[in-house]
């Protein structure tokens, strides 16, 4: 398969790109508008009551320091998924610069001018609107400018909560190992930040004459973007679908649903970290998940029967460079201790312990190893460090812990874990660049995301899990000098899932039933 050029990608995806830009701008502007509506009056208020300025600015400062992903996470229980939690999170980030600059702007208006205004007979309202606010405006606008740039950046994370925006391309590209897709999201996001920054800078420098017109211009822009955004994001689907960015771009994912089942569910893009919970909380009805995920059991979800077999099962196995195996001669034997020790239900149960019972991956791993008589006390050796990577979901954390305990117990090597890497591309690039030594990968991901074979090869090798495994192992050795160690024993595949209750009510058992349901509505 030839590499697609960046421009080809843009041309092909320009409609999607445009939607994402509008969504991105919409999120930025709406949150900015709210930040202005709340922040400016608050700034004025604390400029009047100076004693309150320290606590208010302090609180806004603390909110500012909450990591953005964490903040989005906090928002979901309260506001669900979609634009609402994203806008509120963005609003919180935009608040501090707006409040602080309003406060500073107003307190720094020359006392002589304020006195003149009073002496001429202006009341408090007139003083505020005709003198203090216009004179503070350059400073306030500087605050809005800071907030706007922050928000364009943070809005890329909105795709985690299905709010759209350019994050869909960025994180989709990271998951799918597609550089063009990353750039198609990242470049417009950077350009938006620069353009917005410069546009506001022009406003800031354009002198007082323009400020008098500004009270008409700014609301016009904001309302305009808000309306366009509102129009593009209206969705009245009966069944709300939310897929991960990776699922969106895979043949054994949304592409397969469209081509094989003819199912067009018009999904929102959402991070797998919150997807299951969103389904449980009825924010979403149909999600893409992993067949072994513990949350299926935890949230009482129903896996739809894949009657046309677009989600072939894949093995999970550690991937490691041959070079590394030579460097750590005992490693292969140690890692293979886990081979064949799992089956689907064991893995699902382990995931359930993490996702529902909230046991730590460490405890789960130790319990499992003890049960299988594999556990040994750490040797506290010092014969060089092995670095284990993992992707950012429960199963991978648990496997990484098991490998750590095994290496520490059976060899003299030291272990460093680098868990929570944000996607296939990041993990694989880390492996290629020797930032990590191995991580657990799935043959399907290796095949579809990393190797990207031709359609014919694909058809040939996906006939059975065994064939796929052999193909990726030999291709990886050839292309990257990377080996797939022995499979762990469980099969993981993508799956479509719904709440059990809803599936029963609608009489949906398989994906074809879902297709019928969509066609009839």
């Amino acid at each position, binding site marked *: 398969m030839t590499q697609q050029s960046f421009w080809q990608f843009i041309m092909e995806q320009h409609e999607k790109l445009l939607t994402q830009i509008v969504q991105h701008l919409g999120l930025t502007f709406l949150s900015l508008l709210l930040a202005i509506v709340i922040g400016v009056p608050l700034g004025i208020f604390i400029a009047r009551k100076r004693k309150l300025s320290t606590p208010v600015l302090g609180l806004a400062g603390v909110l500012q320091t909450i990591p953005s992903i964490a903040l989005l996470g906090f928002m979901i229980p309260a506001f669900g998924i979609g634009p609402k939690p994203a806008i509120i999170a963005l609003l919180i980030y935009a608040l501090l610069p707006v409040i602080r600059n309003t406060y500073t702007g107003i307190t720094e208006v020359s006392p*002589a*001018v304020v*006195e*003149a*205004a*009073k*002496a*001429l*007979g*202006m*009341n408090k309202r*007139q003083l505020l609107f*005709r*003198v203090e606010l*216009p*004179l503070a405006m350059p400073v306030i606008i500087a605050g809005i400018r800071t907030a706007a740039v922050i928000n364009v950046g943070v809005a890329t994370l909105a795709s985690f909560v299905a709010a759209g925006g350019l994050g869909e391309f960025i994180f989709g590209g990271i998951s799918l190992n597609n550089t063009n897709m990353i750039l198609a999201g990242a470049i417009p996001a950077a350009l938006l930040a620069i353009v917005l920054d410069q546009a506001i800078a022009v406003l800031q420098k354009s002198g*007082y004459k323009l*400020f008098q017109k500004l009270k008409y211009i700014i609301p016009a822009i904001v309302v305009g973007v808000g309306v366009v955004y509102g129009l593009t994001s209206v969705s009245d689907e009966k069944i709300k679908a939310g897929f991960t960015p990776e699922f969106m771009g895979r043949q054994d994912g949304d592409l397969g649903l469209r081509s094989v089942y003819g199912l067009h569910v018009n999904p929102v893009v959402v991070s797998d970290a919150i997807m299951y919970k969103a389904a449980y909380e009825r924010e979403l009805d149909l999600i893409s998940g992993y067949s072994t995920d513990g949350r299926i059991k935890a949230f009482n979800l129903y896996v739809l029967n894949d009657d046309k077999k677009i989600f072939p099962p894949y093995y999970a196995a550690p991937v490691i460079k041959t070079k590394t195996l030579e460097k750590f001669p005992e490693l292969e034997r140690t890692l293979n201790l886990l081979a064949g020790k799992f089956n689907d239900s064991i893995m699902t149960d382990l995931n359930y312990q993490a996702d529902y019972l909230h046991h730590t991956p460490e405890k789960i791993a130790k319990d499992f190893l003890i049960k299988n008589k594999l556990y040994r006390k750490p040797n506290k050796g010092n014969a060089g460090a092995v670095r284990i990577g993992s992707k950012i979901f429960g199963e991978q954390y648990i496997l990484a812990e098991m490998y750590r305990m095994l290496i520490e117990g059976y060899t003299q090597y030291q272990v460093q874990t680098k868990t929570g890497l944000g996607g296939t591309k990041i993990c694989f690039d880390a492996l290629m660049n020797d930032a990590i030594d191995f991580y657990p990968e799935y043959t399907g991901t290796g095949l579809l995301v990393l190797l990207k074979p031709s359609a014919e090869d694909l058809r040939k090798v996906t006939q059975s899990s065994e064939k796929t495994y052999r193909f990726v192992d030999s291709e990886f050795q050839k292309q990257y000098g990377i080996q797939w160690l022995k499979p762990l024993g469980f099969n993981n595949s993508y799956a479509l899932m719904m709440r059990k209750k809803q599936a029963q009510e609608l009489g949906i058992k398989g994906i074809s039933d879902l297709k019928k349901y969509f066609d009839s509505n």
Partner: protein
Amino acid sequence: MIKVESVSKSFNGKPAVDSISFQANDREILVLLGTSGCGKTTTLKMINRLVEADSGNILINGENIRNRNVEALRMGIGFVMQHSGLFPHYTVQQNIAIVPELLRWEKKVTKSRTKELLHKLHLSEDVLTRFPGELSGGQQQRVGIARALIANTPVLLMDEPFGALDNITKADIHAEFKSLEELKNKTIILVTHDVQEAFELGHRICLMNKGKIIQTGTPKDMLYHPESQFVSDFFAENRLLLEYKTAALKDVSPFMKAEDRYEGFDFNETTSVWNALQKLSADHEDTTHYENLIRSFNDYRKLQIL
């Protein structure tokens, strides 16, 4: 008429104005004169309630200002500040039109009145569209005066209005100020620390020190009938100049001979001796006139000091 009755004001327990009383009559320029921190500006600001008095009463045309709506009171009082206090974000035109706008005048009326004032204050109409930052100090001060005059209020308060100007500009504006018809029927209270300005512009002077009024009187009273050593010491440095300035030609005319009536010059009987001497000293041919005038002034002076 403005009547101030035993008014006091303290800041953080320190008295700034200590039970002072005075009265400014109609068509009078009353100058509050004193060094920095003597309480003159505080006194002025209590009249339009920028500062609220702790005790005592201030009456404008018999009405206690406490009983009036503060914005309405201020709109009825013109106010000129040291650094013009113009709004930097308003054009000159908008600055001048602030009070008319608050009073909801018709635009046409405001416009014609603005033009009239510009003309009287020797400002060209080009300045209307400019911002205060683009004007010279003298122009800014003139605009500040125009803004205070536009609503034609009967009372005008001026806080060091010419304090930030250089001497030449100041002299020009003083001259214009004195000849301005607009001011003739107003009650004006002017605060200054500049002794010459006080003598040049004031009909009467209140000399203040440490929050109290030391003496109130005409410029001549201040020079020739000081009530205390403080007063004569205060003017000692400029005394001779002030004497020449306060004496008008009509004051010295009883001591002049008939042939010394200077018909050929542009003098009238209110011209100060100082100004007349300035003109006469410029030309050698007028030396005799000059000496005669000095002689008659000296005779006049002897009589005053007695």
